[in-house]
């Protein structure tokens, strides 16, 4: 199934929650309302003709100039060999999204990673702890305005830049 057809079915199901227009692009991205992403994912997975059984990737982009954080969901269907990318934009100050870890169990760790590094809050996740950084780390290091702490438990993080000759 091509991206335009997936887009058509998604709009039929969700109506105005689908923000973007259909394209013929092979790597098409469908933009959604933040609140409806879990519902959309559940539909994409459970519908036998769509059957997106694999959440390939979940990642976030900090668009500081627009005061937005974009979250991308890369979906793939092993049955039908088609793929689609979903994008949702949420406000940078308080990014909140419904969890998809209940749809794909693998989303659990991907969401924890996005929470850890970008500070996206996935509502309903149930175990939203840091995945990579230490438990007592302050801040989300992939945010563009992240300021590195001067030391961590007495270990200095100040060092001479390698780029300086």
């Amino acid at each position: 199934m091509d991206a335009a057809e997936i887009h058509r079915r998604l709009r039929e199901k969700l109506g105005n929650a689908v923000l973007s227009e259909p394209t013929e692009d092979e790597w098409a991205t469908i933009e959604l309302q933040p609140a409806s992403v879990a519902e959309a994912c559940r539909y994409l997975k459970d519908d036998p003709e769509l059957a997106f059984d694999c959440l390939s990737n979940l990642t976030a982009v900090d668009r500081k100039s627009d005061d937005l954080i974009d979250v991308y969901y890369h979906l793939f269907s092993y049955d039908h060999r088609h793929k689609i990318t979903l994008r949702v934009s949420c406000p940078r100050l308080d990014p909140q999204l419904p969890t998809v870890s209940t749809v794909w169990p693998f989303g659990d760790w991907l969401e924890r990673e996005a929470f850890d590094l970008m500070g996206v809050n996935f509502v309903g996740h149930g175990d939203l702890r840091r995945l990579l950084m230490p438990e007592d780390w302050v801040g989300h290091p992939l945010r563009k305005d992240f300021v590195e702490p001067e030391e961590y438990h007495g270990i200095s993080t100040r060092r001479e830049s390698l780029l300086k000759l």
Partner: protein
Amino acid sequence: MSLINTVPETVVTSTIDDVLNWTRKSSVWYMLFGLACCAIEMMQTGGPRSDLDRFGAVPRATPRVSDLIIVSGTLTLKMALRTKLLYEQMPDPKYAISMGSCANCGGLFQLAYSVCDGVDKVIPVDVYVPGCPPRPEALTEGLLKLQDKIQQERWLVRAPESATV
């Protein structure tokens, strides 16, 4: 009276310090502490081809019976605290080898927010092995250097100031 030609040929004379040091340096048990790609080279060093066991060094899986910790790989800040904890669990006398660029100074990842640039910020290091990663020959050389250092130690007699190595 002279001792020359008064003892049988099978007798070896030495100092107690030398004998003690010789026994200690010939059984340096190192703790398995692979953190990144350097760990692969450390496994090779312990493997049959370069065979660190020739020098009496065998891998141990617990710090409680180890004499040496070979920190091989990128040390993150999260791991740095655990490294210190493990080092403190080792019984004295204990030694540390910093293996590879990352453990020496942070290496390529020196400026990353999550990386501790140099294991010597956390624990005292006896031998630094350069390389990215060091070949098994280099790590073997590092162990031999450490054995030299152990051999020079004085436990029973404090060496005069002029005789320090």
